[in-house]
């Protein structure tokens, strides 16, 4: 059973956390995430959850406390953004390599500097190689749905990995939208009980967590981690299917929007994909065969499925809300081009960096990208491989 409510993205995630009722939440405030742990702290104070709410002194400690709790067999969560995620860096890798299914909402915000509190993906994109599973959301509904699914993905016996649930700062976190919230008991039934195979508190079966691991076994353990990531892809799809049966919503790796017969397409993730849908609709009215692929799962990267879905396109633009400073384009672009190369694809692909530091991206700006793709389609020539959308130059 579900019920339509009008809440902010932060309220949506805080309510998902209430319904999950995690054993431990480590909390440290940072804009635009602060509301999540603030609202959740009220649920704790009101006795609506059984969670041990640990107020720590930094994000490094928040992730460390989550690691400790998760290693003890607890369902552990924390939430952060931008510089808070950066301060967790060391422990992010430890959480993943220790195979701890922590769930962390990240309310995407530009990483300093210059200091900025608004949305881009420079925080989570930097963490793309940390070993965390990464899910992205277009709106509050998807952020809520991803939070509910995250434990079920991360805790799966073939996975045992932490999951980062990304949601665009302010644009989604602080905007009220309609979404459907599940009944508390349906969430509990969906996520089930967590029975970890090994825990620090299992005195009958003592284990060591986090010992030194030198030339003799470090490599094998990293190899196992790579295998777990491979398994995660399958599990993400299974969990999405199960969630779809419960709610009628969702998709596994990405959403295809009017992509079937499209000639020009965009690949993007986050809230701007919603704006891009409006651009696609407008262009379709003009007779332009425009389409969109909205990524949900970014790590692991579903390369084969993406290239299959894009195979009918002639020209493609990848929109990146983060810069890599590689001088070869944004992070999603690099992954997509690599995937297209593996597939022997002849699709011409270009890249637009957009929306850094919260810069607004309007429907007509995305329409202009599609028009650029039309030009490439007609001329067969790419003048600039990587461009910057909506910047003053």
């Amino acid at each position, binding site marked *: 059973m579900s019920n*339509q*409510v*009008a809440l902010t993205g932060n309220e949506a995630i805080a309510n998902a956390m209430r319904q999950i009722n995690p054993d431990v939440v480590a909390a440290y405030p940072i804009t635009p995430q602060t509301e999540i742990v603030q609202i959740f702290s009220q649920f704790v104070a009101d006795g609506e959850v059984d969670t041990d709410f640990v107020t720590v002194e930094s994000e490094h400690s928040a992730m460390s406390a989550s690691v400790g709790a998760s290693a003890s067999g607890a369902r552990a969560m924390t939430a952060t953004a931008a510089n808070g995620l950066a301060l967790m860096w060391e422990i992010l890798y430890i959480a993943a390599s220790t195979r701890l299914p922590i769930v962390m909402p990240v309310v995407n915000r530009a990483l300093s500097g210059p200091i900025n*509190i*608004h949305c881009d993906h420079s925080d989570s994109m930097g963490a793309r190689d940390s070993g965390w599973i990464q899910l992205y959301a*277009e*709106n509050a509904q998807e952020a809520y749905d991803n939070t509910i699914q995250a434990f079920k993905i991360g805790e799966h016996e073939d996975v045992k990995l932490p999951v980062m649930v990304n949601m*665009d700062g*302010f*644009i*989604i976190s*602080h*905007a*009220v*939208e*309609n979404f459907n919230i599940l009944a508390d008991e349906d969430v509990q039934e969906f996520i089930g009980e967590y029975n970890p195979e090994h825990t620090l508190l299992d005195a009958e079966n003592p284990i060591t967590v986090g010992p030194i691991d030198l030339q003799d076994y470090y490599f094998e353990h990293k190899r196992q981690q790579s295998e777990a990531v491979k398994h995660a892809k399958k599990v993400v799809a299974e969990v999405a299917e199960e969630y779809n049966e419960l709610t009628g919503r969702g998709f596994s790796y990405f959403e295809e929007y009017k992509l079937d017969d499209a000639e020009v397409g965009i690949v993007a993730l986050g*809230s*701007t994909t*919603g*704006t891009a*849908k*409006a651009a696609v609709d407008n262009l379709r009215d003009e007779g332009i065969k425009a389409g969109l692929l909205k990524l949900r799962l970014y790590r692991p990267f579903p390369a084969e499925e993406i290239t299959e879905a894009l195979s009918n396109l002639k020209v493609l633009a990848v929109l990146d809300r983060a810069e890599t400073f590689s001088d070869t384009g944004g992070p999603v672009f690099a992954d997509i081009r690599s995937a297209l190369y593996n597939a022997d694809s002849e699709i011409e692909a270009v890249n637009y960096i957009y929306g850094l530091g*919260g810069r*607004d*991206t*309007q*429907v007509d700006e995305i329409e202009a990208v599609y028009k650029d793709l039309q030009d490439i389609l007609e001329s067969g020539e790419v003048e600039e491989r990587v461009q910057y959308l909506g910047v003053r130059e």
Partner: protein
Amino acid sequence: MATLTEIRWHGRGGQGSKTASILLGKVASKTGKNIQAFPEYGPERMGAPVLAFNRISENELTVHCQVTEPSIVVVLDPTLLEVVDVTEGVPEDGTIIVNTNKSPGKIKEKLDFAGEVFTVDANEISTYELGAPFPNTPMLGALIKATGILEFEDFKVQIKKEFEKKFASKPEVIEGNMNCIDRAYQEVRN
């Protein structure tokens, strides 16, 4: 009602423009509309000019860019007319509703705006009903009358429920706020 209505709220930090946009969004949601309500994204600034926005639609809302061409503008503070161009991006057939004791004609002339201008003295109404100037709730009543975006009786039923949640710890202000909405609905003029 048009398929999509976009609204911009002008206020000063602390006057409740964000709250007004959220209340309107929640009420419109309860009456079956697709909605968005969001403030201008930025630090809280007491007394400084601030913005809030609504999108209300019969269809699914997917756009997540800013509202740049609102057909409806609500101004919570008359002094903003001196410092902000409240007509920016508003089409010629748009509607601007201002909290002021001046006549609509005077404001229309001052703004040099071709569309409809409504005025209501929301400060006087809320000072009488609530003991202090809280212009946001009366301006909701004025907005409903001026634009007809929601059916007034439905609006009242739903906003009362929102007030009962919002003011759970001080229920004595609910009646005053409902009176503010009623009076502004009656008194707004163009």
